[in-house]
């Protein structure tokens, strides 16, 4: 006799604009269906932005997400620049690229750490968070803030990178790269992780395209897209770097893509610092004319998309914000069905939503009685890794 139990996951998730609630339906260990519901932290940013001036809109979208707090502003200013045909000085373009890549580094590092924790690799968790510190220090030097950088404005950036800061930035990047080498070795050469993550939560290329998945989620399924290369902005078309793709579509592929992308980001930052021309950092545009504009930027999780319509006044008539996770989340349904409960945490983590959601994870049976909470689920996941280790002779 089959017994279907329901597992509610969520809903609270205070860091991103997309808190979510999952209801997993399980039969024994196997996930047979999942329903997703979001909206618990819906703050009405789009409506709010219509009541603000354009400068304030940039300020507001910076607060959408704490981790990618420069991806939304850059998308927003690019939408406004597209709307008004506003030119940006070269130096500002390079600075934009540097800030974007620093943000990607610290975001991917966070992800690696948390993925490690879910798998029972708590050393990786500690490393990830510790070795992201140099990046936050560089951010503080460049922008004045560890988070919420307030660097972007229509027509340029707000702060210049001082010449005397460059050697410091390069030293800290060296330090970061050394640790990154160590992390890559520890993670990608680990036979247990290969056994644990390969073939888990596979998103096929066809499905990734149908769901219009973005960023590392799509690239790990062999979809070769990256806004930085395909729709060049900032200074990405002036430096050499490559888009990392993997054909497999499983959790391991997503991990490989993120780790290898960090090397590309470091390389982009070095080249930008080297090539950055002297000159103004702001073209000081005065007005936003009537019209409509679209902005795109590659956030750490994929393409960020803003649409802004203006009637010539000083606030937008419509400001549409689409974060990458909005497109990536529905793929969770494709990847988790047929997998075991102990893999559900890492499959969800692999699309890199914010993790607070899983803190609220809870399993109940069909009489709504609690079976497991999040600690229990993480323990299940870690236990599976441990068993695998024993089986493979690592103790």
């Amino acid at each position, binding site marked *: 006799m089959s017994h279907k139990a329901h597992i509610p996951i969520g809903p609270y998730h205070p860091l991103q604009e997309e808190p979510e609630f999952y209801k997993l339906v399980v039969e024994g260990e196997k996930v047979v269906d999942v329903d997703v519901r979001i909206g618990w932290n819906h703050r009405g940013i789009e409506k709010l932005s219509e009541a603000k001036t354009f400068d304030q809109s940039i300020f507001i979208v910076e607060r959408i997400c704490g981790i990618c707090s420069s991806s939304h502003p850059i998308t927003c200013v690019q939408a406004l620049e597209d709307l008004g045909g506003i030119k940006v000085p070269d130096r500002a373009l390079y600075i934009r690229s540097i800030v974007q890549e620093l943000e990607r580094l610290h975001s991917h590092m966070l992800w690696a750490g948390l993925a490690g924790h879910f798998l029972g690799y708590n050393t990786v968790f500690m490393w990830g968070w510790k070795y992201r510190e140099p990046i936050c220090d560089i951010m503080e030097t460049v922008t004045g803030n560890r988070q919420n950088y307030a660097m972007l404005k229509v027509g340029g950036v707000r702060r210049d990178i001082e010449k005397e800061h460059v050697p410091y930035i390069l030293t800290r990047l060296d330090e970061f790269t050394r640790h990154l080498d160590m992390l890559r070795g520890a993670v990608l050469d680990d036979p247990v992780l290969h056994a644990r993550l390969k073939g888990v939560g596979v998103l096929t290329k066809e499905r990734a395209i149908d769901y219009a998945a973005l960023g590392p989620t799509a690239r790990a399924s062999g979809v070769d897209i990256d806004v930085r290369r395909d729709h060049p902005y900032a200074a990405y078309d002036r430096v050499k770097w490559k888009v990392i793709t993997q054909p497999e579509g499983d959790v391991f592929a997503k991990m490989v893509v993120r780790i290898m992308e960090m090397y590309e980001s470091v390389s982009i930052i070095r080249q930008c610092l080297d090539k950055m021309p002297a000159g103004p950092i702001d073209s000081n545009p005065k007005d936003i004319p009537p019209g409509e504009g679209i902005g795109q930027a590659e956030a750490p999780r994929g393409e960020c998309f803003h649409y802004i319509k203006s009637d010539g006044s000083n606030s937008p008539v419509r400001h*549409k914000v689409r974060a990458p996770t909005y497109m990536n989340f*529905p793929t969770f349904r494709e990847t988790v069905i047929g997998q075991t409960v102990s893999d559900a945490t890492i499959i969800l983590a692999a699309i890199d939503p914010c993790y607070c959601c899983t803190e609220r994870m809870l399993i109940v049976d069909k009489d709504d009685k609690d079976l497991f909470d999040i600690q229990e689920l993480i323990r299940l996941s870690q236990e599976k890794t441990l068993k695998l280790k024993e089986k493979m002779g690592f103790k």
Partner: protein
Amino acid sequence: MKIDDILSDIRNKFGSKVIKAEKKNEKRAYVDIYPKDIVLLTKYMFKELGLRFAIATAVDDFDAIEVLYHFAEDASGFVVSLRAIIKEKEDPHIDTITGVTRSAWWIEREMHELFGIHFDGNTDLRPLLLPDDWPTGVYPLRKNFIVPKRDSRKA
């Protein structure tokens, strides 16, 4: 494929179905269409040309509701937006495109609750963002929706 090629292709292929097709700049184009042709055009953009569905935006334009479907072309790097203009603002209807691409699943639910647009053929239009006790018939992103003042004396 170049942006001009796609625009002339659309004009040739769909003729009178296209109200206006114009290029804003080298990276952006807007094509105005009638709502009844949206599935046809989406099939052409998504399936035939293989463009990526970026997102859809609904706009309350005072005398009509506009729905923009943004399609990104990642090989040459531009965005073509289909603009379906729905004149019946009181009860706007348009066909669903979820039959063509699953990626429109969430955004149709969102536009349904925030703008009151009915996507004919979409069976899953449950609320996505608003709370379960949100009153029916109140659409917060419409221009006639006034954000209620919060009384600071209440907790």
